């Protein structure tokens, strides 16, 4: 075939022709590789699919409910963090009382 007449259609025809005449062993090998790649892709989608997506598709949990849940979780984390931080603030004053030259008793009713 003359190179000057090569176009998309002719290339596709050539490839189809070549594919139709692949030896059975190569065809089987390619088929097996394709199946393997598809299986891997399906597994990845199952494991890494988002919870939001899964919930929407399978459990029909609305997106706004998930957003509220996530925001609530973050709020809880923040409150807990500040609560712990506030508790640790006592250690400064506690150590001052515990090491003061006046006994602890004078600060206790």
């Amino acid at each position, binding site marked *: 075939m003359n190179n000057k007449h090569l176009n998309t259609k002719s290339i596709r025809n050539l490839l189809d022709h070549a594919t139709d005449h692949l030896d059975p062993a190569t065809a089987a090998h390619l088929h097996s590789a394709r199946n393997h790649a598809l299986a891997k892709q399906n597994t990845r989608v199952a*494991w*890494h*699919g*988002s*919870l*939001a*997506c*899964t919930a929407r598709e399978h459990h029909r949990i609305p*997106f706004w409910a*998930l*957003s509220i849940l*996530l925001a609530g*979780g*973050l709020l*809880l*984390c923040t409150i*807990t*963090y500040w609560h*712990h931080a506030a*508790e*640790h603030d*006592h*250690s*400064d*004053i*506690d*150590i*001052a*009382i*515990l*090491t*003061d*030259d*006046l*006994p*602890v*008793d*004078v*600060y*206790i*009713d």
Partner: protein
Amino acid sequence: MRLSQPTLLLLAALCFQSASSAAQSWNDIPLAQREALAPLAQEWDKLSEKQQRNFLGIAKRYPKLTPLQQQRMHDRLVKWSKLTPAQRQRAREKYKSFNQLPPEKREAARKNLRERHATEIQPRTGATPPVGQ
């Protein structure tokens, strides 16, 4: 919004971890902090998680104290741990208001308190208590 399951699990684990910090056993505490809190060794496990956290915060500052301050702290730790949360809170407030007094008034008040404490202790022990005990 597409968050992967591992990310969400990690977020949930972080939330759970920060919301519930478990009590620490005496042997899990670093050696330096155990040394600082040595008088509490026997009753450590009976303390609430909140108290344990507070004492661990105190223990972190222990190495920066002078030997006299370290001694005072050791002498007072058990008594401090046995106070109720309300008593400790009142003591903190009293200490804060006491330290807000002008220096001369504070010194006079200190002297007064020291003498009053000595007279309260003397009839019981029959001896003058050492300062800072």
